[in-house]
C-alpha cells in the first residue's frame, strides 16, 4: 500500500496520524481510499463537486503530480504521496 503523509492541519481528521497507508494503483485511487477510510477528512480534501480542493497540492515522492499526469499518476506499493497545503488568503477588498 502507498504511504500518505498528511500536513498537520489534516492529521486531526485521521486520528492524529502523520502517516497513513492507503491502497490504489493511481494517486487518485490512493486519495479516494484515504477519504473512504477517514470520512471526516473527505470534506477537507474534496469540494462539493468531488474535486480536490484548490489548496491540496499532491506530491509523489519529491515531485508534484502535475508533472506526472495528475491524479492518474501511477503508484507502486512503496510510493510516498505527500499532501502539501497551498496557504493563501488576504484582505482582498481594495
Amino acid at each position, binding site marked *: 500500500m502507498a504511504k500518505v503523509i498528511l500536513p*498537520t492541519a489534516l492529521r486531526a481528521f485521521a486520528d492524529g496520524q502523520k502517516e497513513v497507508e492507503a491502497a490504489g494503483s493511481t494517486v487518485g485511487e490512493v486519495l479516494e481510499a484515504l477519504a473512504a477510510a477517514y470520512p471526516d477528512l473527505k470534506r*477537507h480534501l474534496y469540494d462539493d463537486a468531488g474535486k480536490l480542493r484548490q489548496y491540496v497540492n499532491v506530491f509523489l515522492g519529491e515531485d508534484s503530480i502535475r508533472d506526472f499526469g495528475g491524479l492518474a499518476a501511477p503508484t507502486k506499493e512503496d510510493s510516498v504521496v505527500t499532501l502539501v497545503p497551498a496557504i*493563501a488568503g488576504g484582505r482582498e477588498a481594495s
Partner: protein
Amino acid sequence: MSERVRIRNEVIGAVKVEAEAAYPYECCGFLLGSDANPGADADDAASRTVEAILAVKNEREGDPARRRFSIGPQDYLAAERKAEETGLDLVGIYHSHPDHPAVPSETDLAQALPWYTYLIVSAERGAAGDVAAWRLAEDRSAFAPEEIKVVW
C-alpha cells in the same frame, strides 16, 4: 463555543513587527507551538499554545501583495521540518491586513484549512493594531473567533 488559544506575548509582538515592516504589503508566516489535543474534537479549550513564529516571504509581489498573500509548497515543507526540529508543531498561519480590520475575508475563508489557528493583525497606516485569532468551523461555513490568552 468559542475556543481559546494561548499565545506567548513575544509572538504577538513579533507578528506586529512583521506587519509594520511589510506595510503597505501583507506579511505572512507560520505559528509554531503545541496542541495537547491533536484530535479533531478540539473541545479542550486551552489545549493549544503558540510558542514562536516562522516568517515566510509573501509569494505575491507588487500591488497584489497589498491585499493577498500566498506561501508556496516548498516553504510549507521547510516550515514543517523546522517545526519538527525544534520539537514543535505547525499549528497555524499568521498574516496582516494592511488598512483593514483583523477579520477574515471571503478570500481567507475560501482558502482556509481546518484545525489551524489563523492569526490576523491589522496594520492601519503602517501601525500594527488589533490582533485576532480565528479557526475554520468544522463544516467550513465560517471562521469562529478563538479567544486569545496571552501567556509569558
